[in-house]
């Protein structure tokens, strides 16, 4: 089992193999994401009971929470890919990191927007400087920074390493940001209902959330692989196997 994983890891490091192997995975990711998201949305929007405090507006949570999870885990993945690039010098790690960044940024954006939509009926305002929203905003800037750095630097190897370095430094800083923003918010927080309290959720509310989170991850797998494969084709455009592939199309 271990050996199989190791060979898989090495195979994925070669652009050609990566392309072939992930091609087989794509339909699975697509199907499972459709299934899970569909199930989660139907159960969450139609069948879950109304929250006694917030009424129906809490249902936005079914998009907000998975998006927030993903926003944070995608950054971790990007940083991990950065480590793989800098330490083991695997170029495919950079392809994956490049594919991840915009997706993470979009997830953060969705989480911010849905957070604001959730905030309106709950707090009466579109934006509130609460600890979580502010941390998300800072995370959004981190993503934008990585994407902007990649655009700005050339040649590609230099941009790859610089973005990897930035992602790693960012990961070290994320706990610091979280702690300081949390502390800042509790210091300044006016007396109002805190959204951080999660009352115990009945299974009928919790289950759709689980489906949505898994569905989002499946969606992530599908979109990252799609983007990474496109990037592989672009980078290896001059090599023989890509030319063959495009000839057949």
């Amino acid at each position: 089992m271990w050996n199989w994983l190791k060979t898989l890891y090495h195979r994925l490091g070669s652009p050609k193999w990566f392309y072939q192997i992930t091609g087989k995975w794509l339909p699975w990711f697509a199907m499972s994401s459709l299934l899970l998201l569909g199930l989660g949305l139907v159960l969450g929007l139609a069948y879950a009971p109304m929250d006694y405090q917030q009424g129906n507006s809490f249902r936005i949570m079914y998009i907000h929470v998975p998006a927030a999870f993903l926003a944070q885990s995608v950054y971790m993945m990007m940083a991990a890919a950065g480590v793989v690039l800098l330490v083991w010098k695997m170029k495919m790690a950079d392809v994956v990191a490049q594919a991840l960044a915009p997706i993470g940024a979009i997830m953060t954006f969705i989480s911010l927007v849905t957070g604001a939509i959730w905030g309106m009926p709950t707090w009466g305002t579109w934006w509130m400087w609460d600890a979580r929203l502010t941390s998300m905003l800072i995370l959004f800037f981190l993503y934008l920074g990585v994407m902007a750095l990649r655009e700005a630097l050339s040649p590609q190897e230099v941009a790859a390493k610089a973005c990897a370095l930035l992602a790693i430094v960012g990961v070290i800083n994320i706990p610091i940001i979280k702690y300081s923003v949390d502390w800042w918010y509790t210091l300044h927080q006016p007396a109002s209902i805190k959204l951080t309290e999660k009352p115990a959720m009945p299974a009928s509310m919790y289950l759709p959330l689980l489906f949505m989170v898994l569905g989002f991850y499946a969606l992530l797998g599908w979109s990252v692989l799609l983007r990474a494969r496109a990037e592989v084709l672009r980078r290896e455009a001059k090599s023989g196997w890509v030319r063959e592939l495009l000839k057949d199309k």
Partner: protein
Amino acid sequence: MRDERLLFDDLSFHLHAGELLQLEGPNGAGKTSLLRLLAGLLPFSEGELFWQGQNINTCRDNFYQSMLFIGHLAGIKAELSPLENLHWFAALEGIKDEALLDKALSQVGLAGYEDQPCHQLSAGQKRRVALARLTITQRSVWLLDEPFTALDKTAVASVENLLIKHSQAGGAVILTSHHALEELPGLKKLTLGEVT
């Protein structure tokens, strides 16, 4: 590989003590890139570099302490005087002798200019400050990229002399240059061709 372009294919050579190696080739053939690669400024994706019989990754520090690189840019701070610039290079080698630095500067024809800020000097004079390092250094391997830029004929001849003396003393030099250097004894050449 650089920006998806293959720079060198099937390139290999040895450099022994006392040898002078000149990298030749048309513009864009990669002479500067090869030199920077050897100096560790440019990472390379395939191949190996050996220093004193060992793979360079195991003895990197040793290599850098024995190597002196002067690139296309002089590496001289314009706000500092030649003497102050030389102070820094001397500090890197543990040399504290002030009088020596003065002597080095007068040798390269900058006597009287020691304390002027370098932005007041001409390009040739700045190049001389950079090359003054060569007269005081103890390091054995010299990697020089276009060392003769902006120098007049006598200066070029003097630098060539310096290179010969260095190689005779057991040091090694790799340089790129557009000047003709045929007269130098022990000069080897490596020609880099056009990349198709």
